[in-house]
């Protein structure tokens, strides 16, 4: 709402103050003070409406002071307030008066609750952009300084997020002060503040002059990266990405790399994890030369780290790392320096590591090309396809298409088909589901004959799976197959088998027949639907299980549009009418719905 009322309305509202007196501020403030939290919250959420009713002048002189004074409310109300104020510039009279919003936001930026503080900082950042350079120095920068020297950690933490927005537009002298304040927060006594500063270090570095980055940010970075608390050190790794982007290769080597090398071997696994997690970003930031000299060895260590968490994070980055290597010499580097470590990971003791690897390893085939894939990667894929952990198998199957493009379906199917057939009966239904979803692609590429021979029976078996999601996916799969192989194929191979299930003693299987008909009728067309499917559906209207009967009604509604008028009037209508009198309410409901949708009443 505030966004709607925001920019553009302020000036107009200032002009046309005709009926403010209708809404004395006291009434509105009563609403904001209501004893019921929910009502207070509602009022705060419509604060822009109140401000609009008051006009810009009274919003500034009466509403904002009230809000500043009564900041001790429920956190939920404060959060809504902090959010509203970020869009309030128009309502207080435009950029010239944006600074009026600072006092309440300043208080909000010091409260205990993190979400409120964060929202207040977000709004302050937004408003800072609306300040004129003069107003920024007169009002905003002093606020940042006050927060930065607040006595409780909350205000200092909030200050950390405000430096980068006011720095670029400040004058030379003020800039020096801002840097000074940021420096002192980086060595704050409270770890919470150091963490906040470390997490904003990269952002701040980006708006600084290059000289200051070298002379001030780098030492701060080095200090934070060797902080006594690992929670601070790991945030410095994040900052490293931004800082590295700003420096030349020589400066990087001299100023940043010693610290980064140290971080990659930190004694805390959390820091090493962070290095692994940010690896692609780091790689891009430091450029190809340092990557080859420093990052690849570091990466090898991370891939054989003693903590599984770290190995998994590194395994996740394998593909991106390889992709981002310079084209020249890429294959050799991967084959000699990365692949040996990957081979180890395939038989890692930890399933999360293997599963992380399985989610990216297929991507290597496009990078390494057909020959290498067949010779080196395929054995790894096959090993992972047989892994004891279902998540590993699943990740491999879900990414089969990357390999497909490289080595072709024939090659793929010959080596992988046995494994796929095995997985089609996997004990974990999610694995079976992944295989089913892969089936239409496989079918299209293998052709009808090959499919009928090897895979058709699998597809039919899934229809009677004991997990509903699999039966549903199997139905959908049949539709896709019919779209590929055509009506005739459907009539000969699929439809008879589906219709036989209508007599199955298990009502779930009987329902599957109906679901298949729903899915197939359109692809099969009017003739097959009318001659083969409809009689079966109509017969099932006498089923003793109500769920089957109301699904008959639903199926009739679905296939109705495909049938011709005669069939509808003479065959479908009587059956639906009969179902409309059924003793079961659901059957009645769906029958009547079908009658009205098909306009048979």
């Amino acid at each position, binding site marked *: *709402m505030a966004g*709607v*009322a925001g920019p*553009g*309305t302020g*000036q*107009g*509202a200032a002009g*046309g103050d005709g*009926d403010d007196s*209708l*809404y004395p501020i006291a*009434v509105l403030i009563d*609403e904001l003070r209501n004893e019921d939290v929910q*009502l207070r919250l*509602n009022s705060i959420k*419509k604060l822009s*409406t*109140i401000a*609009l*009713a008051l006009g810009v002048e009274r919003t500034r002189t009466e509403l904002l002071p009230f809000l500043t004074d009564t900041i001790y409310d*429920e956190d939920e109300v404060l959060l809504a307030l902090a959010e509203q104020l970020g869009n309030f510039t128009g309502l207080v009279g435009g950029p010239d008066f944006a600074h009026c919003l600072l006092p309440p936001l300043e208080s909000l930026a010091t409260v*205990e*609750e*993190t979400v409120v503080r964060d929202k207040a900082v977000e709004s302050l950042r937004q408003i800072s952009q609306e300040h004129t350079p003069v107003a920024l120095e007169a009002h905003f920068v002093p606020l940042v300084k006050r927060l930065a020297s607040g006595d*409780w*950690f909350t205000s200092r933490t909030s200050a950390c997020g405000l430096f980068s927005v006011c720095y670029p537009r400040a004058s030379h002298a003020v800039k020096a002060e801002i840097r000074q304040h940021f420096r002192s927060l980086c060595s704050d006594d*409270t*770890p*919470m503040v150091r*963490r906040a500063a470390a997490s904003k270090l990269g952002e701040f570095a980006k708006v600084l002059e290059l000289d200051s980055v070298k002379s001030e940010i780098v030492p701060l970075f080095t200090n934070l990266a060797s902080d*006594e608390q*690992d*929670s601070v050190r790991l945030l410095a790794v994040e900052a490293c990405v931004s800082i590295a982007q700003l420096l030349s290769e020589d400066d990087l080597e001299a100023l940043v790399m010693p610290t980064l090398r140290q971080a990659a071997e930190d*004694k*805390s*696994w*959390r820091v090493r994890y962070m290095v692994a997690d940010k690896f692609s970003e780091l790689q891009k930031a430091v450029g190809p030369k340092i990557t080859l000299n420093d990052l690849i060895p570091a990466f090898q260590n991370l891939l054989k780290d*003693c*903590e*599984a*968490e770290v190995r998994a994070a590194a395994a996740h980055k394998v593909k991106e790392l390889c992709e981002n290597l310079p084209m020249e010499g890429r294959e050799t580097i991967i084959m000699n320096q990365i692949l040996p470590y990957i081979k180890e990971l395939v038989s890692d*003791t*930890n*399933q*999360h590591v293997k599963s992380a690897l399985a989610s990216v390893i297929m991507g290597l085939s496009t990078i390494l090309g057909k020959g290498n894939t067949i010779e080196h990667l395929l054995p790894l894929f096959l090993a992972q396809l047989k892994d004891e952990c279902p998540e590993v198998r699943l990740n491999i199957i879900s990414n089969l298409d990357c390999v497909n493009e490289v080595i072709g379906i024939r090659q793929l199917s010959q080596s992988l088909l046995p494994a796929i057939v095995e997985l089609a009966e996997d004990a974990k239904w999610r694995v079976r589901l992944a295989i089913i979803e892969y089936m239409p692609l496989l079918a299209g590429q293998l052709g009808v004959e090959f499919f009928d021979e090897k895979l058709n029976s699998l597809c039919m078996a899934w229809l009677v799976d004991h997990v509903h999601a699999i039966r549903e996916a199997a139905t959908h799969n049949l539709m896709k197959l019919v779209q590929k192989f055509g009506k005739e194929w459907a009539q000969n191979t699929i439809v008879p088998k589906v219709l036989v299930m209508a007599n199955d003693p298990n009502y779930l299987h009987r329902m599957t027949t109906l679901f298949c008909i729903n899915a197939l009728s359109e692809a099969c067309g009017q003739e097959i639907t009318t001659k083969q499917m409809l009689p079966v559906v109509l017969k099932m209207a006498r089923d003793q299980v109500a769920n089957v009967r109301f699904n008959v009604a639903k199926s009739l509604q679905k296939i109705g549009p495909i049938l011709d008028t005669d069939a509808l009037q003479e065959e479908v209508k009587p059956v639906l009418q009969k179902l409309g009198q059924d003793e079961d309410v659901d059957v009645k409901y769906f029958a009547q719905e079908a009658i009205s949708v098909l306009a048979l009443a």
Partner: protein
Amino acid sequence: METKLPPASTPGSPSSPGLSPVPPPDKVDGFSRRSLRRARPRRSHSSSQFRYQSNQQELTPLPLLKDVPASELHELLSRKLAQCGVMFDFLDCVADLKGKEVKRAALNELVECVGSTRGVLIEPVYPDIIRMISVNIFRTLPPSENPEFDPEEDEPNLEPSWPHLQLVYEFFLRFLESPDFQPSVAKRYVDQKFVLMLLELFDSEDPREREYLKTILHRVYGKFLGLRAYIRKQCSHIFLRFIYELEHFNGVAELLEILGSIINGFALPLKTEHKQFLVRVLIPLHSVKSLSVFHAQLAYCVVQFLEKDATLTEHVIRGLLKYWPKTCTQKEVMFLGEMEEILDVIEPSQFVKIQEPLFKQVARCVSSPHFQVAERALYFWNNEYILSLIEDNCHTVLPAVFGTLYQVSKEHWNQTIVSLIYNVLKTFMEMNGKLFDELTASYKLEKQQEQQKAQERQELWQGLEELRLRRLQGTQGAKEVPLQRLTPQVATGGGQS
């Protein structure tokens, strides 16, 4: 000296540390849900401890300490300490069994020796001792096997190297408790950095380790006066991070237990720093999701503060009201329990200051559809001291709760609650019949007024909404398109009462 600890009780097994007794946390519903959740398959254990040993040397048994002449005792002791600084891989349970046994025997002997032999602890051995302890216990705790580890329901991840680690902790404890122990010498080695690392270990998932750490930190606090302020500050940092950043730290209950005894020893009048700790750290701790794990210890700390300085009562109660649980009934019952503990020690002059907001909250609890919450709140009337406070302030308390009680007495689904409310209403009637009659009479009128107010509110907002639309039209009259786009949004927003 501004703080003093209660006299440390006899050193003993870590299960009975010399801390003030704290009752175990109550289970709200009396049955464990452990059985409902299937045990997760265990991942292989991991520990960051072992990786720093590169070239493993072989350990050979040294002569026993008691077998050497006094002149060689310290040289041998130092060699034993060095042996105990060698680390072993406990993930591989058959690796280097001989070495493990040598170290275990040496540790056992050290424990024995430092506990019983006088004159062993001379100045030169202090650095060796602290080095041996540091090498063994300080390590980055491994990642939790279960990222959603719930201390109430999941089995903790036990430290694989415990056979050695336990002996090291035992040795450390006996070292601190030895009559020969000289804090003035030890403080050169047990410094702030040492304490910081010790505090980080409280995050260990292994309850046995935390139990030792608790006793050890308590002794350190007792013996190293220069570290006390630092320990308190670092504890607040851990708590603040726990509250506002992570919501995960395994040793909160243990740290609070130590703090309970520290608070107990605070000198009066309380320093601002201590009051701030209460208001800005202990009270917000109530907002944490896993409150049940450390609530007993937390409530103990809070009540300790109030017994020291009654003027803090208003702050505390208003704080609890601010953090009152909105959706978690289990926590609500805990809050009610803590509130009763506070009311048990409240001074009548303080009660007057908070009675109104407090009893409005109690009334809200009575109207909770969860009968355990309602029941717990109604039990307040069984407490004679609280009842006497209510009676003395009947004119304020009764109007604050009457409307809700009256309504809930007719609507609550649970018969036990209904009859409890009747008892409460009866008590009120006996307390002040006249006021009771007045309130009954005005109840209906108030209900009508409420409805009317709601009506007026709706009209007010409708009016505001129309005004807003007119304003928008006034400014953007020329532009048709945005207005059309706006209208439906306004319609949905305006329907709210």
